[in-house]
């Protein structure tokens, strides 16, 4: 609260600062909030990282795919190479077999078992064994010396490849046997072809199959190689030399491999032939690769190729197969989509996070804004209350001026119209002031500035005051107004009398406003007493509520104060009676022993204000305590008021540590009940403060006895309560007859318990009862009780007409009618008048005045002052209190007057005087006195008239400036005290009591 108030005193700026401070210290910024500027950058970074990641994923997947592709390629290539090699070697083996066939059947048999015809047929029929060979042929080795014989034998000449008769050479190798497919090469000298010749030479030297480098084959234009096998005439030694081989050579078997169609065939058998491209190279000459199959300049995937070795059985020649994919590697969609999806997902995730962060930031911003607004709103609220308080206060000041002037105006000579106007203005002004005071209170409470006093006060007299405030109104309306305070409630309590009075005034004022008939009843008791009351209620319910002691004439009447139904039955007689009787028993007990509750520091009182007004509509009951809220708008039209009173009351009650509640039934009435905590008064302080705070009730009625005649027990209890406060003993009688008979009986028998001094009769009862009977009774009484002092008859009434008054007088009542609402002091005044006692005190003067008077009366006092005016005023003031005053205008004169013996009782001495000031004069007086005292002590026994043992006249300084130093100086020079110069009664009283003990 302190902070808030402080805040509101500053303006927006400080509020804003405060907000920052608050948020700064309270929770600090969150990470997100602190880095809000970085959020887009974070997003960008995230996107970039994710892009990088997805690229990496793509690359990785792509690489995997490539590796797999390569593996596939290599496996395919190897497969092809192996198949080619296998097929090739199968063919080569077969050719080998043919070579052996020829050597066996052509050379070892004589004559030869094979001729062209046999050979052609055999080879044709075994051609399936050699699918790769377009054909085979056998060429015989013919030395030049044998050429003629050979040609003769076969009948043709040896021809070269160009189909010309062969020139002379050392050797020839004419084809003698050939397959039909290659029959066109018969008689051709194989040695004439460069490749064939080389082949033949190499084959007979190694004895193995040898291959040519690829070349365009005769007949077909396919590329091919020629396979050559040597055929030996005789068996060779196990390890033949080259010469032996050459010597043993009989001829050569050759076959042409059509590599191109061979490979084509082969690939055709395999799956995926379109997928890859296959090239076969002869790499014998490593610098110049000769292509055996495939196109040299093929488009295709040049990036990836695989090489497989081919071994066709010829160690001299090396071959290799190179495979590559027909098409470039297709873009890998899976990798691409995976990466892309990954990227998209990450992008979305990033965006969601970003969005969330932005949202958090926004929410936090909003939160801070709200917080700031909240602080501002609170500040504004406090400021509003302060403003209200200030403005109300500021309005009050000129309003007081206006009201004062109006009051003065009303005192002047005005015409009736003017007076009317002025009075209206005054009434309005008073209403406005009342309203402003209420608003001010409300604002003060809201601003938390209302502080409760803690001073001792008399609850009962405050209640009396409040009641007297409303007595006029209630009397005009014919509404009974009464107060009852339980005996258990301490006489003095510590609390805020002003606020308590305000609460009671508010509640009673409301009740008076809304009540047209019946009663308004204020009841105060200790909160602890409510419990037995509840018990009592149960009990009476069980008993059926029968009430023998009180005769009820109208059965339908309720047992409340006025007989009207009240909203809260708890205030009815049934429980009230119990409360009273309970109290009595407790009260009696508490006289002897200390009441246990007395030791506790605080006392909780329960106050209820009951009325029989229009009540509060049920729908409005829950907002009764809300400010500016009346039951409905018509209420303010009919009854006026702002509706702020009850909310203030509630606040005040809560400040007093209690709570307020109400029970209300429309058209029946309302009962407001509140509790409040008060401090218990210590006995010591209580006696001091009593004088200043309470009206003193006269004690002259103590011990008097009274009979209250009232049919309504609650009302009777109230009357009894007031009488009790005056110290009177009161009895309640239900009717005049009962009272009269009781008195009569008591009167005749002398040892009576009750000899009433006063009989108080309720007017309602008296009017309803036959007055003739009553007056008869009275006469009776007078005759019987002539020996005694007759009891006085007093009428109690809320309002009374002159006719009724006359009738009452005729019936034997005294003049005075005690008008309700009753107050102890008022009752006392009336009874004084009736009984003619207790008039010693001057009415209208306050207590101190009286006591001061009693102190100073008859005393002889010397006033010493050089200032004539002061002298006169002081003398006048002292004379007023009955003192005999003599004056002296200087210290010297005073000395002369105070020569011993003198008859002064006191001396008031001014301090600042010319010639001899007060201090000096006092010193001299004291010197004189001490001399006289010494003399007296010396031979004092002879002198019979020692006055008071010693001479010491009290000297009081009179000074305008009451500083403590001055006071000390006064005491130093022998003065007894001081009074401030313009005499204040209280001051004077205090100073004088010191030495004028009564």
């Amino acid at each position, binding site marked *: 609260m302190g902070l808030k108030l402080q805040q509101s005193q500053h303006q927006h700026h400080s509020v804003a600062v405060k907000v920052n401070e608050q948020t700064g210290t309270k929770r600090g910024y969150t990470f997100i909030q602190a880095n809000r500027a970085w959020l887009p950058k974070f997003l960008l970074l995230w996107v970039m990282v994710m892009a990088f990641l997805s690229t990496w994923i793509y690359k990785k997947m792509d690489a995997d795919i490539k590796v797999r592709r390569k593996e596939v390629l290599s496996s395919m290539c190897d497969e092809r190479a192996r198949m080619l090699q296998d097929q090739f070697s199968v063919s080569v083996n077969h050719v080998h077999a043919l070579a052996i066939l020829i050597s066996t059947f052509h050379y070892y048999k004589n004559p030869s078992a094979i001729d062209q015809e046999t050979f052609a047929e055999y080879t044709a029929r075994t051609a399936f064994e050699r699918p790769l060979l377009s054909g085979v042929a056998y060429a015989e080795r013919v030395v030049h010396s044998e050429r003629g014989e050979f040609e003769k034998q076969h009948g043709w000449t040896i021809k070269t490849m160009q189909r010309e008769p062969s020139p002379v050479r050392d050797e020839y190798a004419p084809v003698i046997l050939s397959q039909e497919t290659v029959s066109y090469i018969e008689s051709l000298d194989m040695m004439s072809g460069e490749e064939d010749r080389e082949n033949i030479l190499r084959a007979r030297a190694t004895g193995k199959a040898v291959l040519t480098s690829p070349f365009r084959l005769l007949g077909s234009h396919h590329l091919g190689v020629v396979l050559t096998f040597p055929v030996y005439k005789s068996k060779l030694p196990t390890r033949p030399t080259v010469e032996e081989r050459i010597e043993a050579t009989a001829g050569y078997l050759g076959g042409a491999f059509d590599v191109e169609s061979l490979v084509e065939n082969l690939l055709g058998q395999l799956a995926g032939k379109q997928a890859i491209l296959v090239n076969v190279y002869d790499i014998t000459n490593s610098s110049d690769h000769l292509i055996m199959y495939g196109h040299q300049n093929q488009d295709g995937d040049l990036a990836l190729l695989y090489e497989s070795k081919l071994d066709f059985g010829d160690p001299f020649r090396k071959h290799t197969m190179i495979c590559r994919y027909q098409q470039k590697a297709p873009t890998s969609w899976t990798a691409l989509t995976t990466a892309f999806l990954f990227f998209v997902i990450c992008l979305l995730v990033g965006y969601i996070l970003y969005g969330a962060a932005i949202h958090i930031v926004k929410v936090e911003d909003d939160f801070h804004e709200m917080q700031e607004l909240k602080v501002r709103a609170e500040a504004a609220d406090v400021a509003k209350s302060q403003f209200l308080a200030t403005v109300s206060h500021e309005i009050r000041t000129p309003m007081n001026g206006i009201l004062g002037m109006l009051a*003065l105006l009303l005192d002047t000579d005005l015409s009736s119209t003017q007076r009317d106007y002025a009075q209206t203005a005054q009434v309005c002004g008073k209403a406005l002031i009342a309203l402003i005071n209420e608003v001010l209170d409300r604002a003060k409470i809201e601003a938390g500035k209302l502080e409760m006093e803690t001073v001792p006060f008399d609850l009962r007299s405050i209640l009396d005051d409040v009641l007297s405030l409303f007595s006029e109104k209630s009397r005009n309306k014919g509404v009974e107004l009464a107060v009852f305070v339980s005996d258990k409630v301490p006489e003095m309590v510590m609390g805020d009398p002003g606020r308590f009075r305000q609460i009671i005034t508010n509640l009673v004022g409301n009740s008076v406003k809304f009540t047209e008939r019946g009663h308004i009843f204020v009841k105060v008791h200790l909160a602890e007493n409510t419990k037995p009351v509840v018990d009592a209620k149960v009990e009476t319910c069980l008993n059926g509520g029968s009430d023998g002691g009180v005769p009820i004439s109208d059965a339908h009447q309720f047992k409340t104060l006025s007989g009207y139904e009240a909203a809260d039955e708890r205030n009815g007689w049934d429980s009230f009676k119990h409360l009273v009787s309970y109290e009595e028993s407790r009260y009696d007990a508490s006289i002897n022993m200390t009441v246990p509750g007395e030791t506790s520091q605080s006392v909780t009182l329960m106050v209820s204000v009951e009325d029989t007004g229009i009540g509060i509509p049920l729908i409005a009951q829950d907002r009764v305590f809300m400010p500016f809220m009346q039951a409905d708008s018509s209420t303010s039209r009919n009854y006026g008021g702002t509706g702020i009173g009850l909310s203030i009351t509630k606040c005040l009650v809560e400040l007093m540590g209690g709570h307020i509640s109400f029970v209300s039934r429309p058209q029946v009435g309302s009962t407001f009940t509140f509790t409040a905590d008060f401090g218990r008064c210590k006995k010591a302080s209580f006696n001091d403060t009593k004088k200043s705070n309470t009206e003193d009730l006269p004690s002259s009625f103590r011990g008097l006895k009274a009979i209250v005649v009232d049919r309504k027990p609650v009302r009777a209890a109230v009357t009894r309560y007031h009488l009790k406060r005056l110290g009177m003993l009161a009895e309640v009688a239900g009717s005049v007859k009962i009272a009269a008979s009781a008195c009569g009986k008591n009167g005749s028998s002398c040892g009576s318990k009750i000899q009433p001094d006063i009989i108080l009769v309720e007017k309602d009862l008296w009017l309803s009862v036959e007055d003739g009977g009553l007056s008869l009774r009275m006469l009776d009484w007078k005759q019987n009780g002539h020996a005694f002092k007759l009891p006085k008859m007093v009428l109690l009434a809320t309002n009374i007409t002159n006719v009724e008054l006359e009738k009452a007088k005729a019936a034997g009542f005294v003049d005075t009618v005690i008008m309700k609402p009753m107050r102890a002091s008022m009752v006392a005044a009336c009874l004084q008048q009736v009984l003619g006692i207790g008039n010693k005190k001057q009415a209208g003067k306050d207590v101190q005045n009286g006591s001061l008077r009693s102190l100073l009366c008859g005393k002889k006092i010397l006033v010493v002052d050089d200032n004539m*005016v*002061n002298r006169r*005023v002081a003398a006048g003031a002292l004379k007023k209190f009955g003192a005999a005053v003599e004056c002296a205008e200087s210290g010297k004169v005073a000395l002369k007057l105070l020569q011993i013996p003198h008859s002064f009782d006191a001396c008031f001495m001014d301090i600042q005087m010319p010639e001899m000031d007060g201090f000096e004069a006092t010193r001299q007086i004291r010197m004189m006195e001490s001399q006289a005292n010494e003399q007296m002590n010396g031979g004092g026994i002879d002198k019979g008239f020692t006055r008071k043992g010693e001479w010491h006249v009290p000297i009081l300084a009179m000074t*305008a400036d009451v500083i403590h130093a001055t006071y000390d100086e006064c005491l130093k020079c022998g003065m007894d005290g001081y009074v401030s110069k313009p*005499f204040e009664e209280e001051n004077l009283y205090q100073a004088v009591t010191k030495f004028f003990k009564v």
Partner: protein
Amino acid sequence: MLGLAADRLRADMNRLLAFLFHQGILDEQFLQLQQLQDESSPNFVSEVVNIYFHESEKLLRSLRSLLMDREFSDYNKMGIHLNQFMGSSSSIGANRIRNVCVAFRAASEQNNRAGCLRALELLEHEYCFLKNKLHELFQIQQQRVLAAGVRYPMQNI
């Protein structure tokens, strides 16, 4: 008619008193003075005030002569006079005069001649004003007493 006149006179008196109080010319001491007046001393207030006027005029005269006569004034004596003036003024509740006296005394203690002269003039002015007003008041009071003499005593109503 007479009753009305008495009312009017009472109202006039109240107004005048309210004015004097409002202007700060008088304070509550004057009221206390009025309370001291009762049947035993019916003219107590006017008596005291007349003494006051008498004394004050003497004091004012001597103050003026002290200030005018010599070039070098006797401030000590002036202080004594002023103290007396102040005392009597506060006794009858002449608040404004008392305040001027305080200022005057302060000036005299500082030997401030110009200040003293100014204060003296002010004092004389205030004194005349008060005198006039109080005379007016007493006049009304006189009339009222005369008027009230015809009627019932007011207290019992």
